[in-house]
């Protein structure tokens, strides 16, 4: 049986194709301006990697903010259900999933079979999402890939007053003038996002083990801040962005 999971996020589109439950192809591409065009490109890429054609896929399930725009999907599920299923498949010890994407942050409590017990979402506010790191990287005049490593060179914690991404950007400009070092400011940025995420986690209650997924999991500075604040080991999959698509593809097998 061949199944596919399509996760249409705010920033990227992820597709995973499974044959009998094993990954035979995956792709991540920018959602860009025209989601339909980007979807075509994503399908072209993943189908060629998997060596199958679209009509050979038995079942497609979509998820993500743009899940309704996937015309070829047979069904849609919420990101919470998708990521829970994906997480437990990656590691059966996982009981808390932290999902930090471009525009949403989630904390999910799951049981041993990947069912959702409780969850908390922030989808109204850029603080605690990838959008926050992007704005801060701009303010610090570094690329998003440089931001994480930069913060690891920090020698002291600097508190940021602003919770809001817009205010934090102005605050950084003021800190630049007060000669705070860039590594210290970068660390302050990551501490700030970690704060927001930790409050989501506390709402659902943290139970080990903890899995971190979503694009922001690639930010080593954020991971460091999160580990420090949660005071626990955090597992991160090889491709943290595709866990929801993976879960959707698994659910498409009916299991």
């Amino acid at each position, binding site marked *: 049986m061949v199944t596919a999971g399509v996760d249409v996020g*705010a920033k990227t589109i992820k597709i995973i194709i499974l044959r009998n439950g094993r990954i035979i192809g995956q792709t991540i591409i920018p959602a860009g*301006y025209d989601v339909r065009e980007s979807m075509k490109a994503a399908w072209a890429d993943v189908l060629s990697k998997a060596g199958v054609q679209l009509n050979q896929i038995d079942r497609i399930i979509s998820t993500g903010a743009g899940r309704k725009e996937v015309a070829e999907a047979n069904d849609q599920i919420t990101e919470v259900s998708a990521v829970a299923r994906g997480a437990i498949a990656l590691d059966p010890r996982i009981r808390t999933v932290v999902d930090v994407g471009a*525009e949403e942050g989630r904390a999910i409590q799951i049981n041993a079979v990947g069912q959702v017990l409780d969850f908390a979402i922030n989808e*109204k*506010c*850029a603080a605690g999402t990838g*959008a*926050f790191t992007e*704005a801060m990287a*701009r*303010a610090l*005049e570094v690329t998003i890939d440089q931001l994480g490593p930069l913060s690891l060179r920090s020698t002291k914690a600097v508190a940021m007053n602003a*919770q*809001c*991404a*817009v*205010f934090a*950007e*102005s605050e950084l*400009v*003021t800190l*630049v*003038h007060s000669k705070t070092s860039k590594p210290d400011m970068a660390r302050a940025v990551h501490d700030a996002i970690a704060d927001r995420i930790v409050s989501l986690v506390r709402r659902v209650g943290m139970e080990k083990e903890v899995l971190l997924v979503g694009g922001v999991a690639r930010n080593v500075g954020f991971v460091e801040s999160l580990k420090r604040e949660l005071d626990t080991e955090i597992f991160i999959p090889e491709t943290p962005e595709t866990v929801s698509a993976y879960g959707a593809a698994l659910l498409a097998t009916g299991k």
Partner: protein
Amino acid sequence: MTMAEFWRWTESRWTAPDKDWKKAKIITAGVDVGSVSSQAVVMADGELYCYANRRTGSDSPNSATNAMNWALEGTGLTLDKIQYTVGTGYGRVNVPFSQRAITEIACHGRGASFMYGPTVRTVLDMGGQDCKAIHIDEKGKVTNFLMNDKCAAGTGRGLEVFADLLGVSINEVGALSLKVEEEPPPVSSTCVVFAKSEASGLLREGWPKEKVIAAYTSAMAHRVVTLLKRIGMEPDFAISGGIAKNIGIVSRLEKELGFKALKPIYDTQIAGALGAALFAKALAEKGK
């Protein structure tokens, strides 16, 4: 980070044409240092003598001095002749020449009462980085207030982001938002960061600028209305702060609330500093 200059609202100064400070018995000043703008107001015998309103910029420790210097420009009045100065605003500790600092809520209440008259009971202050709903009595004393200072939605910074996105001067976004024949649906996100992404998408779909700014202004006004409804609207109603100059917001607020805002005669951004100058007068008279 460099932003284009569309956020640059008009800085201003003013001197009362018919007053001579040398004839005044008591000269006091108030300085309001906000995160976005700073104002200095000088009063002579309880009447408005001169003021200046300028961007705080990133050099916050000097913004009080800069605002005051500009207010005094051309008047011949010097700092040493001012008997008492009160500082207010988020940077009130950075007013080196002040004798006292008083909270901006109290100063806005007092200032709004002076600016709009003793009938005002509900003051909405929409500033650079916060939004306040204040209830006052006939003397301008604060009886209740609610504030949002955690989130850029409904603040000047949010509007600046939009002005920059659309490439329209912030002085014109208000009028532009009214150029739509039919009010579009408001943007779904009150978060400025997300609303900006949403707006970019709308522009790419071919929405004209006025429609996009109308959609954002509508969402912003609605958010402010929620704040006001929580505290309760009591007439008369007045608006202070920079966003009071945005007729797109003001007209939508008035429509949704069913209340007309009193018309200002002074620059709406000076309310805090003006209240501070009045407190300064009272303190000077008490010999403090």
